[in-house]
């Protein structure tokens, strides 16, 4: 079906849910200070992301998610030059690239969870 809808919003894909992990508990919906998301009308499903341009990347949703089901991705425009270079090889990487080196598994410092 072809729908009459406004142009695609920008940014478009700021929040990605892992449908395998998301239980539709809506803790992220309740946490978000900007009310970017709405509960999915279908219970138990991942929330709807409605107000994409209001997200200011605080990450509260991802922090509070009990199942680590949420990834917060910056708009493409702000990732395209946010690049790091591995000194030993000269390779370049950024968030969102398909080619990824081994993840760095070192957690942030602090002993409170």
């Amino acid at each position, binding site marked *: *079906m072809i729908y009459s*809808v406004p142009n695609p*919003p*920008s*940014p*478009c*894909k*700021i929040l990605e*849910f892992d449908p395998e992990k998301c239980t539709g508990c809506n803790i992220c919906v*309740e*946490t*978000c*200070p*900007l*009310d970017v998301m*709405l*509960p999915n*009308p279908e219970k138990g499903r991942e929330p709807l*992301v*409605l107000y*994409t*341009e*209001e*997200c*200011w*990347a*605080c*990450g*509260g949703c*991802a*922090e*509070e998610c009990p199942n680590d089901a949420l*990834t*917060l*991705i*910056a708009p493409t*425009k*702000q990732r395209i*030059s*946010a690049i*790091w*270079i*591995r*000194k030993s090889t000269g390779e*370049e*990487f*950024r*968030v969102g690239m398909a080619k990824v*080196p*081994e*993840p*760095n*598994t*070192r957690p*942030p*410092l*602090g*002993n*409170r*969870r």
Partner: protein
Amino acid sequence: MLWYDYIKKTGKVPEWPYKVEYGKEKVVESDVLVIGGGVAGCRAAIEAARRGASVAVAERGSVKRGGQGGAGVDHWHGAVTNPCSKVTPEMYTQAFIESSKGYTNPSARYIIAKEGWDTLRECEDMGVQIRDEDDIFKGAPFRDEETKLLFAYDYESRNCIRIFGHNIKPVLHKTMLELGVSIYNRVCITSLLTEGGKRGARVIGATGVNTRTGEFCVFKAKAVVISTGRVGRLFNFSPEVNQFSSMLDMNLSGQGFSIGWRAGAEFLMMESVGVRGASENNYVPYSTGNCSNTYFGTPIVDSEGREVPYLKTDGSRVGEYGEIFEPEKPEEGGFYIGVGVGLHQPIAKKYRLPDIDPDIPNKIARGEYKLPLYADFTKMPELERRALFGLMIGNEGKTRVPIYRNYTRWGFDPDKDMLLCPPGEPMNFRGSCWWSGGGKGVLNSMSILGSGYLTDWRLQTTVEGLFVAGGQPVNGSGCHGEAQTTGRYAGRQAAKYSRTAHHAEPDPSQLEAEKERCYAPVRAEGGIGWKELNSAIVRIMEDYCSQHRSENVLKLGIKRMRELMANEGSRAYASNPHELGRLIECFGLADVGEMIMEASLARRGSNSALSFYRTDYPNLDEPEWDCFISIKLGENEAETSKLPLDYYVREPYAPTLQENYSLYGAFDA
């Protein structure tokens, strides 16, 4: 799931998920009402509740993670009474007075200095890690081995503490719940209620609109604390491209100023508009290479590996790496004043640290440095690198998830990698905060700076029963230390005040008029939406209130703003409670715009300390204008007056900071 994917999948436009009852009244009564549940508001609520007051908090977003400090914190300014500090509260306050040439709020600065460390220590008791308990940084030059405190920026004077504060907001939230504080999330406060509905009379509560249900909230209280944040969306509004790079979230719309203005409170320094880099068209904070704030001390190299030096204020090169963190004139009482503390740059030399070569733009233009530059973490001593990325980026709000979590998942390792500084124009490398585009050489993000309510030594405004706290409302800007300390102090004062104040019933005509104003947009037809209105407000500020101002242009600006709000503004529509909240905020933004233009009109002299330029009064710093301009809304028009810069130590106050603090602040009841 993006809404569009939902439509594609189901063929339906999703219904609004919350039951909407526009205008249905919900009445809440408490001793103390806190408006704004960010870190300042939470501390005010906790303190008032601990002192026996019943407390309600009205928060625009959601208290658990809301507010500018909601996402966490990595360092705490103003902890000058910590056991290792070489700075006294008097020195600290003096540094702000000197650096701002008197254009700051010294009473609030002094309160922050006196109580900042205690306020942080209470965070520790509540569950925030503020020490290197696991001895990760043993032997580091920024660690005190006895207390295990870790210091930031200035390792000598030790007044700014690195903390592991990623969980600070959930911890405050939990404490509030334990203390029985009533929390009302998703409430856009729209007005203050005053006794008899009269402007300037005692504040007895507030009204708000729930942005999910459309309910009309009536808060009745004996004392009110305003602890809202800064004002975004006024000089710059393009969320589609800049929200992720913003340090001001969309809820920061100046509502906390507008409601006080309409209630008749006085404000200072509203004409002070500074250029803030952080916003338009830039990068996610700390996502690209730079050497400012959190990344201070990061070695910068050019594409051929040539290192860009850090220089002292006299232009000489820093020798050993550790000298970057040393104030230059400790023997003269010099120390580093901090970053993001609400002052126009540059601050007095005595209170600075070395910084990256300020001549980088010219050297790039001449080909001496070859783009791109990189932030080379691998050149740092290991413990410095761990403190910077593991501790600070790993705990600071706005970096823990989008930078630490994402970058490490995609393989970033500061032990092995350098971060690119996006190239572009050489001028982009002015200053050191390159991710923000602060050096782009255009006024790409102006914002009030240093502006706030006129307060007494109790942090009470000129309207009885109304107290203020927080980075912006009290002293123009600031971070967790400033916000939480003034919050705790205002909560203490409000609780005390509420013990002798009585409840008063709101004036019915005030409530009716407010309801009419707030709900007109849900009945409006054929008008514009909130984003278009917001953009038009911004355009007026750009056109009529730029950095160089004059009487005739400012007057045109005020006229345009009133025309806009009387025409398009009065017919603007809201199709659900979310849009209604954003639209009501636009009404507040227009008020703040007028406040800025009125205050700018009243200052008939250019002023270097405020970066304030009048083309019709070009002479800089005339003594007769070396004073504050106080502004309030009178019967119908703005009323302005002059106030001496040292009002806080003049009648009716005592002549010194210490005496005033003892008289008004230091009580234990």
